[in-house]
């Protein structure tokens, strides 16, 4: 029952908020925060719970079967944490509908991660696009961004649906995620199904060359939402690769793995180089995301046990620091009234606490040893090297150097240098704003020092 609760609680409260007769910032924020906090607790506590409702048995078996697997457990924890941060940090016009959207996003994505059924997975895959889409429509600078986000991802979602339907027709059931009985299927259709799955996953992550929706989306989405989108939604594809593609069709996936490795490496470098020249702080982080997630894809494609363990750590770490970064960037934008690196500067003296948080996030993002990002990065690269992709490991190292350059450029450009003179000094991080960041910061440190916590509790494929 707990998995269902994690999904339904945010959805129901989200809908109720939509139906609220008038804008009430306090009620919305408190309700949102309470729900998010409750789901954090449920997510951590409800790991072994499962819940099933039979949907249909014809033409194949599909069930609403929810329950965390190893990786999805952490993704849901990450999701709830990010949502909590996002809800608490929300400070936009029309707060109520923003928070409702956030909760809706949380519910749909929790469904995505918790479901054990491919068809339901595909359903939630499409559903989770909607809140982002509507937020982009309502708050974004231009509707075309929303449409681009939607169309690109939706194209992926449709192909996913198709692949899932084909899978169901082939296997007779879609209730297969995390079910060892269905691992290692063989079929002549498998390459096609895999291709369909991969397309969806690659677009969502995103991976070069399917990424062009991403920068504008991240740039245009208000900070709280983009924190969740970048922090967690982008993991949906990677989760799919690990929990679905790799688990169900290992030998076919292995055959195509070099392709994914190449795409991963290209994304890794491509994103890094573009991030180096962006002048909008959100775009820097957006492209860095492309780069980082390329690394995870590379890890998955290496098929190496160690690398995939690293990928799990890095997925969580990336979720934490990118959510953190986007929330912080939101705070920065709010205070400095600009996102341009050329106009920002000198925040360090004015808002030291904010700068501190920014600093931790940026350093974690550039893979500073001791923070969560590093652990994943290192282990991934060891695994990738071990699996024989020496060239990929070496190119990844180039990207790491580049990452340090662009993240420092971001951090220093925003917080250091001469102060911007013509703005009033805004107050430093308030305690509510800090509350939004604290859980994420804590997790970043905790998993940085002790990443084994993420893996100690079991492996994905028993």
């Amino acid at each position: 029952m707990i998995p269902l609760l994690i999904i339904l609680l945010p959805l129901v409260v989200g809908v109720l908020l939509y139906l609220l007769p008038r804008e009430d910032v306090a009620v919305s924020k408190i309700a949102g925060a309470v729900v998010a906090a409750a789901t954090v607790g449920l997510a951590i506590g409800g790991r072994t719970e499962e819940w099933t409702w039979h949907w249909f048995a014809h033409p194949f078996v599909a069930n609403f079967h929810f329950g965390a697997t190893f990786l999805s457990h952490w993704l849901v924890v990450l999701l709830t944490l990010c949502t909590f941060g996002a809800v608490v940090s929300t400070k936009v016009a029309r707060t109520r509908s923003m928070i409702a959207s956030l909760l809706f996003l949380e519910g749909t994505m929790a469904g995505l991660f918790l479901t054990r059924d491919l068809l339901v997975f595909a359903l939630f895959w499409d559903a989770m696009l909607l809140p982002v889409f509507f937020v982009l429509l309502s708050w974004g600078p231009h509707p075309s961004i929303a449409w681009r986000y939607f169309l690109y991802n939706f194209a992926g979602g449709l192909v996913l649906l198709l692949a899932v339907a084909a899978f169901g027709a082939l296997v007779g059931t879609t209730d297969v995620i995390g079910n060892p009985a269905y691992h290692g299927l063989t079929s002549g259709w498998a390459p096609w199904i895999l291709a369909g799955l991969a397309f969806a996953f690659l677009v969502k992550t995103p991976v070069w060359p399917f990424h062009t929706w991403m920068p504008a989306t991240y740039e245009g989405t208000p900070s709280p939402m983009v924190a969740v989108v970048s922090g967690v939604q982008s993991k949906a594809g990677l989760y799919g690769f690990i929990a679905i593609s790799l688990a169900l069709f290992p030998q076919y996936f292995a055959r195509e793995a070099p392709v994914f490795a190449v795409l991963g490496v290209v994304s890794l470098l491509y994103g890094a180089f573009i991030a180096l020249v962006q002048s909008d702080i959100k775009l820097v982080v957006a492209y860095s995301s492309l780069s980082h997630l390329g690394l995870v894809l590379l890890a998955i494609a290496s098929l190496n046990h160690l690398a995939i363990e690293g990928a799990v750590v890095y997925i969580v770490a990336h979720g934490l620091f990118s959510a953190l970064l986007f929330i912080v960037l939101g705070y920065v934008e709010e205070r400095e009234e600009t996102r341009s690196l050329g106009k920002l500067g000198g925040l360090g003296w004015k808002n030291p606490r904010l700068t501190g948080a920014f600093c931790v996030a940026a350093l974690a993002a550039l893979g500073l040893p001791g923070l969560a990002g590093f652990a994943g990065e290192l282990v991934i690269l060891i695994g990738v090297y071990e699996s024989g992709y020496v060239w990929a490991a070496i190119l990844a190292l180039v990207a790491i150097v580049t990452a340090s350059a662009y993240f420092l450029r971001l951090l220093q450009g925003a917080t250091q240098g001469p102060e911007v003179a013509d703005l009033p000094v805004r107050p430093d991080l308030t305690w509510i704003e800090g509350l939004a960041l604290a859980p994420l910061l804590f997790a970043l440190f905790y998993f940085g020092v002790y990443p084994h916590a993420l893996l100690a509790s079991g492996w994905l494929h028993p």
Partner: protein
Amino acid sequence: MILVALLLPLAGAALCWAFGPRLRGAAGWLATAAVGLSFIAILVAGSGREALFTWMPGFDFGLSLDRLSLLWSVVITGVGCLIHLYSIGYMHGDRGFARFFAYMNFFIFAMLLLVLSDNWVGLLIGWGLVGLASYFLIGYWFDRPSAVAAARKAFVMNVVGDVGMMFAIFLLVANLHTIRMSDAFASAASLSPALLYAICFGLFVGAAAKSAQVPLHTWLPDAMEGPTPVSALIHAATMVTAGVYLVARCAPLWDQSASAQMLVGTIGALTAISAAILGAAQWDIKRILAYSTMSQIGYMIMGVGVGAYAGGIAHFFTHAFFKAQLFLASGIIIHALGNEQDVRLMGGLRKRMPLAFWGILTGVLAISGIPGFSGFFSKDQIVAGALAHGHPYMYAVGIVTAGITAYYMFRLFFITFLGEYRGNVDPASVGITRETTNAAPHEPGDDAHHAPAWIMGLPVALLIIPTVLAGWLLFGSDASPSPWSRFFAPQFAGPATAAVPIPDWLTTAITFAVVLIGIGVAALRYATSAARADAVARLRSESLNMPKVLTHQYYMDALINFVFVRGARLLGAVFGRIVDPFVIDGAVRESATSAQSLGTAVRALQSGLLRAYAFVIAIGAGCFLVYYLVTGLPHR
């Protein structure tokens, strides 16, 4: 206890960071105490190994304190403690006082982690974190654009080094399946030569970046943007010698790869001499010291590279003292002169700052290799070791560099302390062409708020003792080995040294002669009465006639900037402004447009004419009939 020693500075850092504004001045004392206690803890622990926790599956963390790490830890915490104390005075009144000590303590923690880890990952984490601390401290005055740029440069170049190390670690872990260093060393013999060379190469990239070896050295001179105590602690005494530590630590690897040793030695020698030459062309007191640091680390690297590990680390040991000493003493000068760092605007300071004078004098004597002073012994060991291990070229470089070192150090000394005080002359008249002075607005310069003088004086005074005396630990002969070599004998079981064509005493003599020549030249140029009288004009002409290749540091910065920085940015611009919008999105847009035009074309087909509709239906019906008749016929 090792863990305690490690965590004490971390706790200090956390406290200073969290409660900085409330602690005010007490932050400095707290931080100093943390480092001091850590020093004591290290000494108490002495040696040992402590297992910690499983970091990742198969990755077990632990600390180990052996003789090599003990040496480093003692220097780090000991010298660190003194420099902390000094900083209380130096940083007095700065608005980021507590933050400064938080960073400093954090650095001590990171450096201890680096030397105490018993595994590659811990080493790498420490390696990265010292880089971070260095970054924070270089960019400490972060409203100064030059400091920000210097910090970034230092960090990025250090990441290049980290990445090299990571590469080596992949190779080690992937091939040996362990992250414990001792295990790796035990099975190093099983690695192929090429692999071993690759591992050593990767490690050395890390070492070179951290220790500012050619060609990854350009960050170090810029790093002098940080406060002077930082330069003393991080960019002279401890962090930059991490490369030496790494090579010495991995001696079992290097011992099996002669070509790797050759590489390391060559780079060390190259750095030693090239940095020394640059040092002779600098005017900024801290930059002179920075180049001298590079040069001296070049010595150390050369020493450990050729296999003279004891000599190399000995030079680290003595260098830590005398270079800290030099920096701290020059810090007193800089502090007193209101952040003036250009030696051309100094002069005649002997009387005005006696402590600085004596501090710098002992430091100069030690670094120049004047017999009896600490630097003499250690440098001698390296130079002799190079020959003993069969590297005559490095031997020669070592001797020549010793002369140049003596020249530029005495040049510094003479210009600073002899003659008249030039602080009030027009900067242009001494050949200073820069538009504005480098003085930072935040550097505490107001005498009214100065801390007690002894806080800064005491560390300098204390450091004079090891600066002069530490070298005697190395005094010994083949018959009765020095305490130093006896202490480290179990650590390094390198191959036997070759037969030496030149006896040790002759080497010492030659070196000393060259050093004397260097001192003589410096004296002729700057210390004669004529030179002192005509100082302003001479400095001016020297400034203006300085070879461009030297003032531009052999154009290394420009080259790196052009090839890597500009190259990467160009690539980014091409990807972001051309490939993304036009190639990838263009394809998507095209398909959308073609869908629309397809729809329009189909609309044209639906003409609205009834007869046309009927005709289409008739054609369809005709097709049907053809099919049915053709398929139906064979069934008869």
